């Protein structure tokens, strides 16, 4: 009853298409996650050390993003966000840029992830014993260098559990891009299922692929956590 040959890697099997979708999913997830980390790092520093205005604006950003469903955010960012960006560029007399496909996906996931990353990294920086940073200041190390050499390495063990969880969320949030018609794993699965009418087979196959991402990620995260905690006592 189940036609396994539909999953073959070469046509007429759809396996190749699914793997292509998996690659897109990974590209957006990695890109969006990294963008989220960058936003999160600056957001966290802004929240901790920024002026009152920056702090409040960041608070609005993280609160709004975490209170609105990802699906709605993705729609708003996908349609309104890129449109808004182009209008701003037009105001500044730049030519409109073509924000579609991969860049749009990364942008959307990155903005959503950034809000969560901000909170995770902020919490991690606050967990650094203040003496370490005070000591660095006492040695008159410039702030940028303190950030690079002390703050970031010292906060990592505290941030890794939260950030790993965000990575797992990022891989799953990419599926929501299927709703705006972005060709990642879930959408190509839906297309393959609709074309061949083998809904069960393809949805289960895609589920197995997502599960594989999660399990492999968890394994790697486990190694990373153990390494990052070397020499530290009592960090969870």
């Amino acid at each position, binding site marked *: *009853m189940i036609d396994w040959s539909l999953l073959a890697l070469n046509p007429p099997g759809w396996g190749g298409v699914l793997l292509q979708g998996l690659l897109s999913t990974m590209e957006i997830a990695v890109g969006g996650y990294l963008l989220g980390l960058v936003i999160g790092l600056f957001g966290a520093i802004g929240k901790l050390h920024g002026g*009152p*205005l920056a*702090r*409040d*604006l960041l*608070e609005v950003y*993280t*609160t*709004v993003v*975490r*209170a*609105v*469903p*990802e*699906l*709605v*955010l993705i*729609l*708003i960012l996908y*349609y*309104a966000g890129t*449109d808004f960006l182009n209008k701003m560029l037009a105001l500044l007399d730049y030519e409109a840029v073509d924000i579609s496909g991969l860049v749009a996906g990364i942008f959307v996931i990155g903005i959503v992830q950034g809000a*969560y990353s901000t*909170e*995770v990294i902020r919490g991690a920086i606050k967990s650094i014993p203040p003496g370490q940073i005070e000591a660095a200041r006492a040695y008159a190390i410039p702030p940028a260098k303190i950030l690079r050499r002390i703050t970031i390495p010292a906060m990592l063990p505290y941030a890794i*559990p*939260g950030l790993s*969880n*965000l990575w*797992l*969320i990022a891989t*799953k*949030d*990419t*599926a*929501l891009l*299927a*709703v705006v018609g972005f060709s990642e794993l*879930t959408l190509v*699965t*839906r297309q393959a*299922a609709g074309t061949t*009418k*083998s*809904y*069960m087979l393809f*949805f*289960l196959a*895609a*589920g197995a692929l*997502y*599960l594989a*991402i*999660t*399990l492999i990620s968890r394994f790697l995260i486990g190694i990373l956590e153990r390494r990052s905690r070397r020499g530290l006592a009592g960090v969870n």
Partner: protein
Amino acid sequence: MTTSPLPADETSRRESWLKPHRLVLILIAVALIAAAIIFGRWDWLPRYLPRLWSGLLVTLAMLFGSALLGFVLAVPLGLVQVTGPWWLKTPAAAFCTMIRGTPLLLQLWLLYYGLGSLFPMIPGIREFFLWPYLREAWPYGLAALTISFAAYEGEIMRGAFAGVPSGELQAARAFGMSPAKLLWRIWLPRALHRALPTLNGETVLQLKSTPLIATITVVDLYGVISRVRQETYLTYEPLFLLALIYMVLTAILVFAFRYFENRIPTRGI
């Protein structure tokens, strides 16, 4: 889940709240909202109000229905992972891993379209007494949301059961309590008490998952707004309204939970 939807620390809020720059920010926000009201197109809103209301009810029914059923499922899921025999422990752990490791959207489509595609192969299914429900979309939405909530909360319950100090359980045994009584009188209440604070975050996350059911034809809040977008060809106004409604719902949930949490005694814990 380590991502709580709203910041818990209140220290910044307890300081004097109204500062000059905040006043400016509030003025800008008011101006933006006023601009949205004046320059946006809102003539559709009165026409859709009844439908938005019924969409809201569907969203809330799905949220509370799935959270309640999911929580009831989560308790045994967590318990058997801590104390159950291997033939219960393994499937429960596998279930939680599988659900937490795949996107809810995919699970939803698998349940609705995947199962639906099998119906023609089952003779007599249309005479089956549950057929009227199998035809509808909402049972699948409710089922998928429930399963998802159960898996995430099940993981939390596992931690909660495991985290009850063993001394308390040993003391109960020393008093001669039967295993069932121990579970009912000591272990479960203590685990529930430990898990309750996570319910707030999990429920907000669940609220944020509900719009996915619109993709399987359930007309929830999101479904109504999609309808508005199609019929009016507007993008910004309906989506911003939708975001605003979800923000209000999240805020209500957060404050309601905070209120109830403060009423639950935490003495000695």
